[in-house]
């Protein structure tokens, strides 16, 4: 089959690989009908997250049709079922899974010793996302083996298109969890840094969760226009002062809830000198992330507020204003998304026509053109917001 394979920094190719095979009774194999490229894939494309090996298959936003199952499905999944695959692999039986903390499932990381060394504990296995999280082959391919498939799936009822439900795999629940973790009150202003696919989903989620005002920050006109369409007031950080505008929009109080939908690769630019220093430190391996957005959020958030971080950070961040964080009594909430905690509710909302996540798709191409699409999405060319691949 064909698959998008990581060969090194900025080197993803469409390779011919062998078909995946069932290894365990709880495995299933799906024929992929749609998959997508995520902002997290860009961190891997740049080799900013340690633990990728040449030959790793990319992709963690995938859906398709079950073509083969192991014999441990317990009636929960069968050939012919149409499923979306959550990017977090879950066992459904460990204590964390029982609590709904799916992204820190204690069983599914098959390279747990690596995670334990680096993070102190193991976290869940993830598709197409470094050997720290199991080194599982990803879903930007024609076929995908889903481990623990009896629990790791979202069954899709008839009548919904791939485009409507594909993002249940990651970015929709990710934006949703980012907003849900804010415990939004009807008087709240929610400020969201980054209007990529995750930011866009967070904006819609904050609206659906009843925020009084949603403010979105980015510098790309096409993304800001999409944010505005979703109900956000926008700030272009290239031409406006984020601090002044936020103060103005909140009568000088600052937003109660702040969401970082940018992550470790904040734009490097002279008007934000800390990003230049971070970039230099990254080069000398003195720091792994560029946490400009975190610093800005902590400084601008209203005391007593919440900082919610769906954006991915990989290792060590410097100059985090702990004094402001502590004295303002801010709450920090973060994590890889506990996808299945939210998907029943979100699937119902899609089916009821409350929301249609396909609005974010700007490019649909076949798998062979995937490598070019990585560049296009990374470079924000051609007004790209989200790329869907059709194997």
């Amino acid at each position, binding site marked *: *089959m064909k*698959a998008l*394979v990581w*060969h090194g*920094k*900025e*080197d993803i*190719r469409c*390779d*011919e*690989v*062998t*078909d*995946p*095979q*069932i*290894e365990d009774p709880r*495995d299933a194999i799906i024929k992929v009908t749609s998959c997508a490229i995520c902002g997290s894939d860009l961190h891997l494309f*740049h080799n900013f997250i340690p633990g990728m*090996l*040449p*030959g790793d298959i990319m992709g963690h936003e995938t859906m398709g049709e079950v073509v083969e199952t192991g014999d441990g499905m317990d009636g929960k999944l069968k050939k012919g079922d149409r499923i979306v695959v959550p990017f977090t692999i879950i066992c459904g039986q460990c204590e964390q899974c029982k609590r709904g903390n799916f992204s820190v499932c204690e069983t599914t990381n*098959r390279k747990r010793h690596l995670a334990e060394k680096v993070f102190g504990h193991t976290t869940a296995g993830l598709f197409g996302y470094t050997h720290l999280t199991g080194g599982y*082959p990803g879903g930007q391919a024609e076929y995908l*083996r889903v481990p623990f498939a009896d629990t790791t799936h979202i069954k899709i009822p008839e009548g919904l298109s791939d485009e409507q439900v594909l993002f249940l795999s990651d970015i929709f629940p990710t934006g949703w969890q980012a907003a849900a973790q804010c415990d939004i009150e*009807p008087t709240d202003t929610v400020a969201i840094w980054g209007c990529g696919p995750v930011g*866009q989903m967070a904006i*819609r989620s904050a*609206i*659906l*969760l*009843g925020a009084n005002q949603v403010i979105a920050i980015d510098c790309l*006109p*096409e993304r800001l*226009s*999409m944010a*505005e*369409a*979703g*109900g956000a007031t926008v700030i272009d950080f290239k031409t406006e002062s984020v601090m002044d505008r936020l103060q103005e929009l909140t009568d000088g109080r600052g937003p109660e809830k702040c969401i970082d939908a940018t992550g470790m690769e904040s734009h*490097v630019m002279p008007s934000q000198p800390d990003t230049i220093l971070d*970039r230099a430190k990254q*080069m000398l391996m003195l720091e792994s992330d560029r946490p400009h957005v975190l610093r800005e959020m902590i400084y601008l958030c209203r005391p007593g507020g919440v900082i919610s971080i769906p954006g991915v950070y990989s290792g060590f961040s410097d100059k985090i204003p702990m004094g402001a964080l502590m004295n303002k009594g801010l709450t920090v909430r973060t994590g890889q998304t506990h996808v299945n905690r939210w998907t029943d509710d979100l699937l119902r909302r899609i089916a009821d*026509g*409350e*929301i*249609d996540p396909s*609005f*974010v798709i*700007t490019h649909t191409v076949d798998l*062979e053109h995937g*490598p070019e699409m990585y*560049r296009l999405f*990374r*470079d*924000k*060319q*051609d*007004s790209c*917001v989200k790329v869907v691949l059709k194997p």
Partner: protein
Amino acid sequence: MYYVANIMRSKGDPKIVRSGPRHVPPANRLARSLGWFSIGLGALELFAPRRITRTLGMQGNETLVRAFGLREIFSGIMSLSVDRNAGLWSRVAGDGLDAAALMSAMTRHNPKKHNVALALLMIGGIAMLDYRGAQETARRPQNGRRRLYPDRSGFPKGLAAARDAARKVLSHTKASVS
């Protein structure tokens, strides 16, 4: 062909049979060459500043040359990284500094001033390459028209309806809590 990567996969994992083509935009190749050039020159300036000052008749400026060497290495590594655009711009700025330093050595009584002139000429040429590279590796669309998405709310029933429904639910849950 033999792929090392394949031995690290478990038995049911897909293994590479044939690798597809690698896409490297031409501008990135230019950035690569300039990056390595920068590192090479930087190393020379850092470790053998005397040779340079002697050739240019600029004895006594070794510390300056060393500092320039560090700068070259920094720009070089940056030009090889994913932020090659920033690296190339820093090279353009560096070319300016180099030229300024060389101009100061273009005095009548410098016996090596023909070497200085030659170096200035070279820098002129390289600066043009650096500038071209910086232009071509810019990440934003240089030509293509930009599309905007003012009609993509994501709410099939409209934004106002989504807002209203949410507020109703919120006030409802609030009421039932108190």
